[in-house]
């Protein structure tokens, strides 16, 4: 089986380790990985801030970059939700505004082929034990777009629970938003910080060494608060934990 990796712009520039981890993990599970270089940002920052027209070229670009692939895998619940939920909406609106059906068709053909990483592992590959090894105490924050947008349910937790050596502790108030919210973090910094501070306080209270998530943008916000507070708690993307093995531990 082959799958295309949609690495997302945040991972590409700031968290390449996440993309590398997805490649290693999928290859270990026998999946050949393609990386179409024409890919870019999904357009979520523009769309969610109110710039739908600026988003359209990125919708077109993403659909074209992955036109050939049966499976498109991305290590981000929010980018997956953007493509699955909002691309068709953007396409329909463009058609309604008289700019043709091309965007709507592109969105409709792409949306069902896009999988968030844990969906791909559990639903398509049918695995929960990916042969990972990570001897640490971990707590998991389910990001809103994964949790409510995609309905990932307990997939991430099942994957983590199957990791050898890993002690998974529940995060109180896990389903509450961390306060990142894309440009919300800049437009409403006080509320954003207050929400994030409550989240890292809850995470630190679990006694975990690692706060795990499946969206690097949320983790960037929480990590920024943790480092400013000189907390020993570190953030890690789920993919990096799943990619770690006894032979190749996470550095």
């Amino acid at each position, binding site marked *: 089986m082959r799958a295309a990796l949609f690495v997302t*712009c945040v*991972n*590409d*520039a*700031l*968290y*390449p*380790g996440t*993309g*590398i981890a997805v*490649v290693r993990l999928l290859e270990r599970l026998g999946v050949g*990985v393609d*990386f179409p*270089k*024409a*890919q*870019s*940002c999904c*357009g979520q*920052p*523009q769309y*969610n*801030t*109110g*710039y*739908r*027209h*600026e*988003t359209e*070229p*990125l919708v077109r670009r993403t659909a074209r970059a992955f036109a050939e692939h049966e499976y498109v895998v991305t290590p981000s619940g929010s980018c997956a939700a953007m493509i699955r939920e909002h691309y068709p909406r953007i396409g329909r609106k463009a058609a309604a505004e008289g700019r043709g059906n091309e965007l709507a068709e592109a969105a409709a053909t792409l949306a069902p082929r896009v999988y968030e990483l844990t969906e791909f592992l559990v639903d398509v590959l049918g695995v929960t034990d990916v042969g990972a090894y990570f001897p640490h105490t971990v707590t998991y924050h389910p990001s*809103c*777009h994964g949790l*409510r947008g995609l309905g990932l349910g307990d997939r991430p937790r099942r994957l983590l629970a199957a990791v050898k050596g890993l002690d998974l502790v529940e995060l109180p108030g896990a*389903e*509450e*938003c961390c*306060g*990142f*919210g894309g*440009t*919300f*973090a*800049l*437009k*409403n*910094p*006080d*509320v954003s*910080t*207050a*929400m*994030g501070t409550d989240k890292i306080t809850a995470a630190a209270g679990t006694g975990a060494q690692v706060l795990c998530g499946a969206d690097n943008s949320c983790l*960037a*916000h929480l*990590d*920024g*608060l943790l*480092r*400013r507070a000189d907390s020993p708690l570190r953030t890690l993307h789920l993919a990096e934990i799943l990619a770690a093995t006894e032979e190749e531990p996470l550095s």
Partner: protein
Amino acid sequence: MTGTYLGMPAFPAVPDLPAFPAAAREAVRDEVLRANLRHATHTIRDKRARAVAELADWDRLRAAGKAVKDHTLRHLDRYLLQLEEAVTAAGGTVHWAADADEANRIVTELVRATGEREVVKVKSMATQEIGLNEALEAAGIAAYETDLAELIVQLGHDRPSHILVPAIHRNRAEIRDVFRAEMAGWGRPAPEPLGDDPRELAEAARLHLREKFLRAKVAVSGANFMVAETGTMVVLESEGNGRMCLTLPETLISVVGIEKVVPTFRDLEIFLQTLPRSSTAERMNPYTTMWTGLGPSRGADGDGPTAFHLVLLDNGRTDTLADETGRQALRCIRCSACLNVCPVYERAGGHAYGSVYPGPIGAILSPQLRGTRSAIDASLPYASTLCGACYEVCPVAIDIPEVLVHLRERVAQGGPVTRAGVRVTLRPADGHTAERAAMRAARLLLDHPGALRAGERLLARARRLAPRRLPGAGRAWTDSRELPTVAAQSFRDWWDRERSNPR
């Protein structure tokens, strides 16, 4: 669509209030307020979840409620005319108010015609929306709020901060202080001594209000629902104060938003289940009062008002109805479940929303009813992380995040809207020039992977120079958070080295 460009539509009185982020900053720093809100919202959200889980058919009730509301809104003209006919046939009088001024004028004249100088009020957010109390005061008429929480707000010279619990931002010690200081100025003073036990506080309010109920000849109410086929008004409440207002006075004036109509009596079956469970987490609310005009006795037996007036309020609702995406906000049954689960509301408090409708529903309702011209209304669509918790709990399935993004587009890029029945094109709101330029630059960069890659390399090379604090808009991040560390090489570069040219 007409080609008229309106930067500043002449549409309802626009509040001169600070934008949401500035108002929220105050609230976030108020430790007592944060603790009050956190305690109250978490208690009710947990209870609500249990009450909803009791019903096996919740999802179907939710879908049915949505369907009934959508159907009614699609045929609103027909159902409102049917309602008018039924209310009139039952001995009531129907008045149509296009906006706040007209509604206030109608009510003021109705009260004046009775010769009375005071009214008791219950359950009407619509009257708060239009500023009726202030209009009556200007006409020399005193309006007394009788809902316990609204009484607290009124006595405290305060503003409501929650749809269901307008005084949610107050704790009981604060309420005791308000009662002690203010009750005497409005009527019966607070008993001495007065503690902060909820029972004692409720008794103080009861004694104070009883005097008002027994004296009042005129009442002003709202309604949760209006039934088109029978002309029936429905009020749901917990305290019984509403029933006192609805039955004791001689004249009853109900001010109700036109979106509150449902077609048939049978439709209430859905909402009488979903509203109490969503709002107070009760299986059934303690008091459900229904009245149809003056009833068969026409008030002749002394039970109930002898005159009933219904003021149907538009005030931006028809214009909202014209917007395909935004109109779903009119499905709202004012349960407040979205406020209680909203992490932003929990930190910012209700006052930051600058409207009688706070929280997620307020963030989509106010900028539609009032327009996006003022600083507060242009900022409300951004008062959310789009976490989706509000949509998940909404008993009529309003996709609040969808409407928020839709309204953000209106603020940032402009677009077609209906104002006073006329289709116009709005220009973007002021103050988005820099943001628009940044979004455009980002899109140009992101749409050219070669340029993106060059940018990433530049960023990687300059990564050791990254400042701890950014200037300009970036300060909003670095004031409280560290910046992410830029990686030495991007994923693209790693891929090229490790996978594109296998060694």
